[in-house]
């Protein structure tokens, strides 16, 4: 039997698209993501690149980024223009540091549309407690108007699992 559809990326993607559509309904998660995505359209923040992730130190560097990690100690660094956001994941909180230091506001935006706000102190530090569950992204708005938006992260399984 021909297996070309399986080996070729374009054909596999097309087959996957057909499979997902043939199910008849879009999984609720995608609808939620779509709605959350729309709420970002008016935000003029620079998309931050993930420049460091302690997970990548492992052997499976490329794949590690595409996998959710259990709540363990992890360090991540995001960079957008002049701004750098360093976060450290502990068992019960996410500790962050904005570089260069300065006050501001931090938002944790989860895929279901929930927004949790944290204050960035004078030293550029902030704490998110508890560690967000499920997919989320961080939006950081410094008082000097610089802003940064991270990609989607998943540090803990979504609620209900």
């Amino acid at each position, binding site marked *: *039997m*021909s*297996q070309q*559809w*399986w080996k070729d*990326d*374009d*054909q*596999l*993607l*097309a*087959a*996957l*698209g*057909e*499979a*997902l*559509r*043939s*199910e008849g309904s879009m999984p609720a*998660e*995608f609808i939620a*993501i779509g709605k959350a*995505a729309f709420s*970002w359209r008016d935000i003029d923040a620079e*998309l*931050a*690149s993930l420049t460091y992730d302690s997970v990548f130190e492992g052997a499976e560097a*490329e*794949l590690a*980024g*595409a*996998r*959710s990690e259990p709540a363990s100690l992890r360090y991540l660094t995001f960079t957008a223009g002049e701004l750098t956001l360093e976060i450290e994941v502990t068992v019960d909180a996410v500790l962050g540091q904005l570089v260069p230091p300065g006050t501001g506001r931090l938002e944790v935006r989860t*895929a279901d549309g929930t927004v949790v706000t944290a204050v960035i102190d004078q030293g550029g530090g902030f704490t998110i407690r508890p560690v967000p569950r*499920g*997919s989320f*992204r961080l939006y950081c708005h410094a008082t000097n108007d610089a802003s940064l*938006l*991270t*990609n*989607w992260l*998943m540090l803990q399984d979504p609620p209900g699992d």
Partner: protein
Amino acid sequence: MTHNECSRVLRARKRSASSSGPQTAPDDRLAPAEHWLFIAERDAALREAFATLSPQCHHLLAMLTADPLVPCAEVSATLGIAVADIAPLRRGCLDALRRCPAPAALISG
């Protein structure tokens, strides 16, 4: 260069979307009923495998398989990934899909 790579990905999508039958058909020699059965099994296996992927892959593949096509710039902005990263991430997600047992069993079986 980066933009071209992304455009290439989308063009390929468009091509296979416009002729999805022949492009993704398992085998032209199959009788209609067998063909239908194969597609049904394949769809179920792909959905099962898809469910095991990471949220990042869910979001990316859902957008890349969306109908109508979603422009690369919108994929980039919505998911917060650079346009240049779309193609390698797509490859990584599809490779992860290939490692899942359900469709792999269908292929080897």
